[in-house]
């Protein structure tokens, strides 16, 4: 009998406690769902129980979830998915022919013609082929190899997988990963979990959140003192900042990555969400290849896309993919091995992705309806982006950069010193204090800038532009009123 057993069951201490738990886990935080959201959920519960509040609903403008905010799904996509789920509906003549054809093609590629069967771990082959064709078409004919496409459980899964692959070394040799500040907290959470070194590079708020190579250089040089910088992450269009990088900027980043021998991770999930008239989405891959073989044959890159954003907003499906460029074959073999551990990405998400990269064509019956819906969604977002910028900039104490793309606004807020002091007293970051007050007084849930990172001494919040236009106008008005009150209270 072991020593434990010999001591009998006298010891009541748990086998697994926070103290003896994996220390990396303790460092993981995901601000988008952090403390403020917990409070928002609690308030919602209280409202349901009849507790009186100055508002009768909580508006959750914290997470980029379009459908939760009332955006309607695209009819064609849901028709095909319903047909895939219950193929008996293929007999129903209320479904258009093009939807039926797509469903049949997808089902034929599934085991037993069922979306419930496991697929290969890299993703259904014909869907990867469709993704490759989509990329080629998008990038003006630059070839894409389906073998370099890995379908995933949302872009998040692919991003974490890639980061996991690239983290190695100990001490000063530990992999450093460059991420933009402000950043999307998935990255910092993943880096904490992997015990990788996070290297912050600051986007320039005064220049519309653009990226400056000088700042990249500063960050990487400083980082070389204590780690081995190996990866550069960039989100374009940006989250939370919404900036759409210019072509020149993308070229600069690629040049920098080549010089510093960095693996580029280009998160492009908002590629259809571009609103500013003078902005255009340029894929990193396309720019890379148009820079010529000196770059296109050497710079290692992974780009990511998903079904959660753009005009589809289908977050709940967890569909996504990554394309890997110039990866060493032995490294790629390890990647392929790693994805096989998790079996496969959810098949409905794979099916949805297939439709996103293979939408109705002009000569197909569903085309007009599809385009109408798609255009309406993107136009509404563009309108709301403009409206948001306009209203916030009219508030003294709130400065808002143009929302060039993505789904968020990240305005800067001026906080009176007394408010900052009060926050510190309560052990809260000043912008968290501000956002908590806003939540309690107006029932609006935002994420404080401290959750995304910001320059020392500056404060921000991230708000989504997803609520329906009329509601958004009300939200903007309430925030405006709150800000004025708050400034007065702490003046």
């Amino acid at each position, binding site marked *: *009998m*072991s020593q434990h057993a010999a001591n009998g*069951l006298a*010891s009541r201490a*748990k*086998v*697994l*406690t*926070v103290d003896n*738990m*994996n220390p990396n*886990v303790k460092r*993981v935080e995901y601000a988008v769902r952090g403390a403020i959201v917990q409070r928002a959920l609690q308030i919602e519960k209280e409202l349901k129980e009849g507790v009186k509040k100055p508002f009768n609903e909580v508006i959750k403008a914290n*997470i980029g*979830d*379009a*459908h*939760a*905010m009332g955006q309607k799904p695209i009819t064609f996509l*849901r028709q095909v*998915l319903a047909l895939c*789920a*219950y193929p008996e509906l293929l007999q*129903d003549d209320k479904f258009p022919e093009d939807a039926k054809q797509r469903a049949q093609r997808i089902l034929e590629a599934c*085991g*037993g*013609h*069922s*979306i*419930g*069967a*496991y697929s290969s771990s890299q993703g259904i082959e014909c869907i990867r082929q469709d993704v490759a064709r989509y990329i080629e078409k998008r990038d003006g004919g630059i070839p894409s190899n389906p073998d370099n496409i890995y379908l995933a*459980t949302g872009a*998040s899964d692919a991003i974490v997988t890639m980061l996991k*692959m*690239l983290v*190695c070394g100990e001490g000063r040799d530990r992999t450093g990963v460059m991420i933009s500040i402000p950043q999307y907290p998935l990255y910092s*959470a993943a880096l904490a*979990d992997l015990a990788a070194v996070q290297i912050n590079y600051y986007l320039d708020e005064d220049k519309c959140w653009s990226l400056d190579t000088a700042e990249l250089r500063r960050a990487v040089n400083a980082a070389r003192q204590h780690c081995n910088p*190996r990866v550069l992450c960039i989100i374009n269009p940006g989250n939370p900042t919404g900036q759409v990088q210019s072509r020149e900027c993308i070229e600069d980043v690629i040049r920098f990555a080549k010089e510093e021998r960095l*693996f580029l991770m280009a998160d492009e999930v908002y590629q259809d969400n571009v609103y500013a008239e003078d902005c255009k989405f340029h894929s990193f891959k396309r720019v890379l290849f148009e820079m010529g073989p000196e770059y296109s044959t*050497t710079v*290692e890159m992974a780009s990511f896309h998903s079904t959660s954003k753009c005009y589809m907003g*289908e*977050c*709940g*499906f*967890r569909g996504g993919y990554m394309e890997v460029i110039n990866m*060493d074959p*032995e*490294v790629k073999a*390890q990647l392929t*091995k*790693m994805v096989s*551990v*998790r*079996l*496969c990405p*959810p*098949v409905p998400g794979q099916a949805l992705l297939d439709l996103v990269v293979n939408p109705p064509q002009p000569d197909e019956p569903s085309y007009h309806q599809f385009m109408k819906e798609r255009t309406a969604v993107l136009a509404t977002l563009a309108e709301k982006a403009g409206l948001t910028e306009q209203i916030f900039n009219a508030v003294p104490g709130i400065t808002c950069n143009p929302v060039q793309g993505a789904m968020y606004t990240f305005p800067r807020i001026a906080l009176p010193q007394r408010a900052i002091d009060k926050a510190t007293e309560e052990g809260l970051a000043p912008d968290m204090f501000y956002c908590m007050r806003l939540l309690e007084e107006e029932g609006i849930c935002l994420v404080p800038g401290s959750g995304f990172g910001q320059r020392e001494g500056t404060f921000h919040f991230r708000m989504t532009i997803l609520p329906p236009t009329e509601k958004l106008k009300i939200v903007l008005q309430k925030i405006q009123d709150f800000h004025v009150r708050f400034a007065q209270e702490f003046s």
Partner: protein
Amino acid sequence: MSSLQQVNPTVRGIRASAHTRLHRLATHIAQDITQDITQGALKPFKEVIDVSAGDPHTAGFKPVTFVRQVLAACLLPRLLEEETLPLDVRRRAQRLLEACEGGSVGSYTASSGMCHVRQSIAEFIVRRDVGVPSHAKDIFISSGLQRALMVFIKLLAGGQEETRVGVLTPVPCPHTLPALLDEARLALAPYRLAEGRRWAVDVDELHRALKSATERCKPRAIYISNPGNPTGHVQDRKSIEEVIRFAAAERLLLLVDEVYQDSVYGPGRRFISYKRVLFEMDGEYSDTVELVSFHSLASAHMGEGGLMAGYMELVNIDPEVMHFVDTMLCTDISTPVTGQLALDLMVDPPRPGDLSFDTYSQEILLTRAVLSQNAQRAQEFLNDLPGMSCQPAMGGIYLYPRLHLSPHIIEKAKTLKVEPEDLYCQMLLEEKGVLLGAGCQYGETAPSYHLRLCILVLPDTLEEVLARLASPPSTVMAALPAREGRRHGEHFVTHQWCPLC
């Protein structure tokens, strides 16, 4: 360019799966055959039959109609206004959509799962365990069983070399488990199941395994599957109590995979959950033993593994630790909604009196009948084959017959630097077009060799497989020893020295 040296050593350390290699080979052979046949060539077999792993829909079983009808209505809510689908389907879909943010399956959900579904699961567990309480807050939904297990074991992980945290894992175990533990950086501490007693759990062996393991790692948990994957063993209450007492005495956390709980067919056997047994023991156990039980859509009746959803129930786990489970799940943002809804339908299916009940129960009974039939047919057949012996299965979807290989094959495998069962499976695949699972996929060491056969297949498929297995590959046949097989009931010596320990 990044090189292999710069890949995360944890990733490099994930053992390559023989299953993957054989699978790839099977695909190539299948493609070659299609080509050859269209060119008029004669082949010994017309198609490759894969019975190495369980995927019911691929094997030809139909999805549960009710599940797919409800999902279709949730995906396309206009179906709620039409009469194409039965009323109870539409009602359920309506209720589920009301539980989704914005009434859409395209929204994110809470990271640990939709409240509504967690509640359904808790209620299911209470019904199943005849009144043992279960709470939604202790139930965590994730993208499949693998993911749930990974999230939890990551909490346990830590240490290096001799201080590396270890998990007692059964031999044999699910073929996907070792790589998962490798990725989470946990050491595997094997304990052998008793083949001669229908793969029962032997507590003396647990003690031996633990003692041996503590010399090279820090065991903190014990993993067990019940019904056993791939053994088909179903534990009785006494056996479960023994394991619980062992875990309690040795301060091990229990990780229990119960995904095949709906598939028990051995005469006189019933599934009883670890949780229920625990709660029906004394307070010194029921209040303290830390248990995590797992279930998923990949059960035999549902077969919806591709929808990627499962759950774990945490029992007696420190509430502060549970908070971190949710944090870890946050980085997945949420589990696919169609999968979560399917979980609800799995745990709360049509009841007698519901419009869809008859169809539903027929479909379930059919699957159960086929499984039970196949289990018996295949076990008897294989046990009679020269060079093979096979314990009867009482539950689950696999048989795990033993191979008696000649020294010739074992030598050949050595020269080729593969495991003997792996070589045997390859020969079988190339000559007979049947893909079985190779037992060596987890730490199975000389001198016993096994195969894994999925019996959740259509009866015709099984007959075809058995017919092809009736004569071993000619390459193997030539070198077979005289019949050494043991009929079930004879006692195997189990306390063999295991070089892994």
